[in-house]
């Protein structure tokens, strides 16, 4: 059975100007020990989706559908239960490590806090657990006495990961965990996340705008556009042989160094993602789509099978290959 199961999840922000449908009917599942990457541009709804998993959204967000975490419906949980679940069963690593830590509290105290709040350790035991957690993320024990400003960006992100691991959760949601970091530090943090997930049988839901990073870390990928999953499948297939034209464009946006096809030939998409309050009729990607046909302007295409364990929301999917290649 999957550890996390999203069934037709929608999130709508009710603001003064009207309703903003940020996530529109997303279904995903994630098993223990599995890493799923959710990729999309700003405004695609990927972060909203991540926040909805632990009900961390502001009050004006209305969530519908079903979010099952280990067989329990997150949306139906009482506040007390929800508080118990956060950190202990599922935790989040946020993108800005700079802002996620309290600047006037020592690292050790911050990592220990979830342990103490959840009554999982006495303050003595918590101290040794903090040492253990810091060493898991590659930081020396004396760092527990440091303040956040004394650490580099990569070290702070390691502390965030140590906090997320503190209560031995079964699910970790990582929202752009390496975006603000340098390439080398990013590689260090990604290697760390990958190793920890594999060693502790944790399920990982990782969110990023960078398809190449996700393809490297995750087993499966889901590509979001305008609040929907437009393609899902094994990472290798989605990255190297995307079925949806949007995923293809995303994959091409990150060139492989040494590939003659991308030398002096940056590739992107014209246009911009649609305004969620003013979605185009038919397929939301159609105005930017290089392979759009007439019916795309009228038919709202939902996910359909696109090969083994793969789905994609495009009219060209399921049509014999020679008809779609331009």
């Amino acid at each position: 059975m999957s550890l996390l199961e999203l069934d037709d999840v929608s999130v709508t922000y009710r603001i003064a100007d009207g309703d903003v449908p940020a996530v529109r009917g997303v279904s995903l599942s994630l098993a223990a020990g599995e890493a799923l990457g959710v990729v999309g541009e700003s405004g695609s709804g990927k972060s909203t989706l991540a926040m909805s998993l632990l009900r961390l959204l502001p009050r004006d967000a209305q969530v519908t559908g079903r979010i099952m975490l280990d067989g329990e419906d997150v949306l139906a949980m009482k506040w007390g239960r929800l508080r118990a679940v956060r950190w202990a069963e599922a935790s989040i690593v946020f993108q800005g490590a700079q802002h996620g830590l309290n600047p006037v509290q020592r690292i050790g105290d911050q990592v220990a806090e979830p342990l103490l709040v959840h009554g999982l350790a006495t303050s003595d035991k918590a101290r040794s657990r903090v040492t253990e957690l810091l060493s898991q993320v590659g930081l020396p024990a004396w760092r527990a006495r440091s303040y956040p400003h004394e650490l580099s960006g990569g070290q702070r992100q390691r502390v965030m990961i140590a906090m997320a691991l503190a209560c031995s959760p079964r699910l970790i949601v990582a929202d752009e965990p390496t975006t603000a970091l340098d390439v080398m530090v990013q590689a260090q943090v990604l290697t760390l996340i990958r190793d920890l997930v594999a060693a502790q049988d944790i399920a990982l839901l990782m969110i990023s705008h960078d398809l190449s990073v996700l393809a490297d870390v995750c087993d499966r990928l889901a590509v979001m556009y305008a609040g929907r999953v437009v393609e899902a499948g094994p990472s290798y297939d989605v990255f190297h042989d995307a079925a949806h034209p949007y995923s293809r464009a995303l994959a091409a946006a990150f060139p492989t160094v040494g590939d003659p096809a991308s030398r002096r030939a940056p590739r992107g998409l014209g246009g911009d993602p649609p305004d969620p309050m003013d979605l185009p009729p038919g397929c939301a990607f159609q105005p930017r789509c290089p392979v759009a046909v007439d019916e795309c302007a009228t038919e709202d295409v939902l996910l359909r099978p696109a090969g083994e364990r793969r789905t994609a929301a495009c009219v060209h999917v399921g049509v014999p290959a020679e008809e779609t290649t331009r």
Partner: protein
Amino acid sequence: MSLLEARDLRVEFASRGRRARAVDGVNLAVGAGEIVALVGESGCGKTTLARTLLGLERPTAGTVLYDGKPMSYRARDLKGYRREVQLVLQDPTGSLNPRHTVYEAVAEGPRIHGLPDEERVVADALARAGLRPPERFFLRYPHELSGGQRQRVVIAGALALDPKVLVADEPVASLDASVRGEILALLLRLRDDLGLSALVVTHDLGLAWNIADRVAVMYLGRIVESGTVEQVLTAPRHPYTQALLSVLPESPERVVLSGEPPDPTRIPGGCRFHPRCQTLASGAADEVATRCRTEPLTILPASPDPNVACHYALARQPP
């Protein structure tokens, strides 16, 4: 001949009572119509180097040459210089005034320089930056534009002064993946159509592969390897360049350097990369190990030929 050149450039800062040698002896040249990528991690000095080339920092030693002449720091000369060499910043949201319309943002430079026929200048600049028809954007505010459009407005602001060189600091780092390619294609097109040179400061080797002619890899205040993009990125000779390339997604064998990028207030003796060097640590460089630890490398010249500052690579090079 080079259009913009750094000659034995050094820039130092006082940092908590110590001297930070942010740029510690750099030769770098950007030729007319050439796109050069300056690559390195944060803290390597690449942004300081770019700011010094723009005249925003004064070098502690060495010279910036433009069109063969040393830069003059007199106010009037700097003003003229900044018409020719324009800066494009990383975050278009931060570099545009939210209360100024697109027209005002682009017209600011031409007004300061007293250019005639302002409206035509602004319209031309917007069109060249790919915002067409330009009149449709005149009265829009930054918050009404997408990230890609904002970056185009910033580029239009630079183009309005008809510069010869753009210095772009991470021009696509804050943009979405699908928009990134469009902005890079714009930089390439500006070079092809207007002969514009560019120095692109980035940590992104894919970007260099996408648009640059030459690349210079910077580590702790020095250029450690330079050459054409093909030479440096497909056959890197410096262990640091090799490590940077190895951590790209999809690369077969990963060399993740441990530790953080080091501190410009404590530059190690010998080769400045030796404490993190994977080649030295593996024992492969044993024959030159003493030199790596004790003997500093000479500063690389600004020549377009391939150059590397590494005892091991130089020892293996056929004479």
